[in-house]
């Protein structure tokens, strides 16, 4: 169409001015996408970290276990259940745990903790705790009553590898029982809250002290093959075992979902702010373009270009600015995100703060097609809105002034 050609030529009449506003649009878009990709990467990093070290994809409990973690609220025939789950298509691995609330004490003091009895072989198929060891070994050692604790607990209680600690908790008879354990490893997940609370022992050791002959399982944790199929697998297990509480990672850690929603909201707010700034920039540019062409636009109406066509011409010119600036911004954003998605952005200089929240210091920005579409759409809507005022100004010009001028 010829009109499109005319609009296109018109935006290059004042090259510098158009380039400035196109640049502003491109930078605005790049900023939104880069920040959004970066935060998405950060959230995903946080979620992955939580999943791999703490919550895994799905956990199974006795429905009442959550209340006060009583020993009796365990999962019946857990061994068979594990086999059954492992035979399911979507399930990658599963581990069973014995859990007791208790206290860990050393000569320096005592702390309330979650004592988690695990089978090291099973456990390492589900959680990456092994990778979080900073000193010593994982639990699969031959020593008697081994225990692994976090760096935080070690510091608080003045413990080192081979230090002896006493664990105190309730046994089946509801009496307080205690056992001596020896520190074989110290871990650090980077998540302070988590580390303050969790200590790991071997399942058999814990069961022996609790005083049960049969293995007793309070928690099963599993990983699925496909992250996107978590809910599907959960529902499948749910329908087969309506008496158990089956939860996915979002239900187990609602803060993850909250975090996610919060981030999405922040990106929308950021987009709105940048688009508002762009709207004023574009209005200013187009208003100048209209006012310096007053005479020409009046002449066009004098010789027969109707108001709708003049209006459309200005709208098209404005949209063109965003059609050039938009894809340019998308391209820069794509390239920079792509680049960092390979190498990651190393935040270790600031990670002291980040690790408090369980964040890995290397962030891999997340390229998300949806954000690209959303931002391109936003900038088109913005350009359209920004075009209305200058286009109305153009339409209101009096053609008689074109004749009279000069």
């Amino acid at each position: 169409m010829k009109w499109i050609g005319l609009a296109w030529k018109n935006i290059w009449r004042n090259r510098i001015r158009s380039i400035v506003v196109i640049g502003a649009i491109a930078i605005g878009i790049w900023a939104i996408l880069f920040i959004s990709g970066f935060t998405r990467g950060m959230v995903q990093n946080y979620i992955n970290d939580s999943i791999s070290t703490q919550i895994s994809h799905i956990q199974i409990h006795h429905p009442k276990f959550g209340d006060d973690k009583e020993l009796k609220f365990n999962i019946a025939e857990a061994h068979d259940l594990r086999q059954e789950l492992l035979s399911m298509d979507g399930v990658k691995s599963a581990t069973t745990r014995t859990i007791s609330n208790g206290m860990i004490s050393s000569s320096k003091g005592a702390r309330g903790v979650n004592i988690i009895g695990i089978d090291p072989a099973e456990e390492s198929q589900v959680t990456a705790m092994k990778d979080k060891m900073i000193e010593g070994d994982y639990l699969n050692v031959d020593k008697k009553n081994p225990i692994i604790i976090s760096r935080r607990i070690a510091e608080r209680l003045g413990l080192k590898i081979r230090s002896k600690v006493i664990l105190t908790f309730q046994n089946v008879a509801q009496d307080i029982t205690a056992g001596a354990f020896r520190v074989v490893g110290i871990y650090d997940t980077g998540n302070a809250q988590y580390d303050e609370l969790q200590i790991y022992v071997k399942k058999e050791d814990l069961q022996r002290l609790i005083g049960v002959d049969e293995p007793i399982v309070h928690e099963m944790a599993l990983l699925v093959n496909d992250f996107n199929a978590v809910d599907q697998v959960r529902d499948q297990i749910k329908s087969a075992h309506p008496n158990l509480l089956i939860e996915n990672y979002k239900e187990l850690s609602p803060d993850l979902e909250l975090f996610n929603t919060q981030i999405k909201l922040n990106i929308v707010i950021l987009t709105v702010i940048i688009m508002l700034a762009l709207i004023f920039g574009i209005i200013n540019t187009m208003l100048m373009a209209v006012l310096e062409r007053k005479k020409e636009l009046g002449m066009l109406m004098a010789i027969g270009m109707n108001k709708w066509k003049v209006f459309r011409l200005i709208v098209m010119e404005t949209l063109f600015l965003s059609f050039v600036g938009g894809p340019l911004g998308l391209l820069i954003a794509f390239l920079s995100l792509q680049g960092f998605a390979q190498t990651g952005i190393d935040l270790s200089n600031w990670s002291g703060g980040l690790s408090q929240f369980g964040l890995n210091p290397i962030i891999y920005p997340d390229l998300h097609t949806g954000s690209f579409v959303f931002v391109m759409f936003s900038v088109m809507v913005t350009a359209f809105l920004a075009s209305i005022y200058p286009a109305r100004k153009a339409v209101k010009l009096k053609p008689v002034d074109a004749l009279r001028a000069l």
Partner: protein
Amino acid sequence: MSDIVIQASELHKTYDETAVPVHALRGVNLQIKQGEFTAIVGPSGSGKSTLLNIIGGLDRPSSGNIQVGGTDISTLNDNQLIDFRKDNIGFVFQSYNLIPVLTAKENVEFVMMLQGSSTEERDRRTKELMDAVGLGDRMHNRPSELSGGQQQRVAVARALAPKPTFILADEPTANLDSTSTANLLDIMARLNKEENITFVFSTHDQRVIDRARRVVVLEDGLIASDTAS
């Protein structure tokens, strides 16, 4: 069908946005017939532009009646007026007023495009008109690559392209040197003679007045004399 192209009766125009109202036209009666070559002359401020603007449907009279090609244009709303101008009136402005980003050809076919003419029709007509104004070889030049005289010839071709009822030109030669002026008038006179195209133009240049076949003299918003040669 009547051969009266413009019929203006008792046109008054008062500009009253100013501190002191200006009576630019005080009762002008004017009839223009098909094929005329008429100059509206008079000193600066005598009301020439005001009259042409009203005839061209760019401005409305304070009172009086104006019919163009049998249509009472005071009954048309703004958008209807734009359409009316597009199909009936060809404008030539003092300062050429071509679209700077388009080539000469694209300027000439502009109004034809607004009318929705086909590409073939536009190509044929622009070629014919550009030849007629002696610029057949400058079709693809931008206005900035043409002299003032050449630009004004393109403007004449543009005004003619949609086959209007008449051509209205407000001081078309005011910015031209004498050679270009003579050249433009030759072209206009030839188109008038050979194609029977009606021209109404204002001027205060004696050399232009001499070429007119009818001279209407305006003085203080009134017709002082009206002579045909």
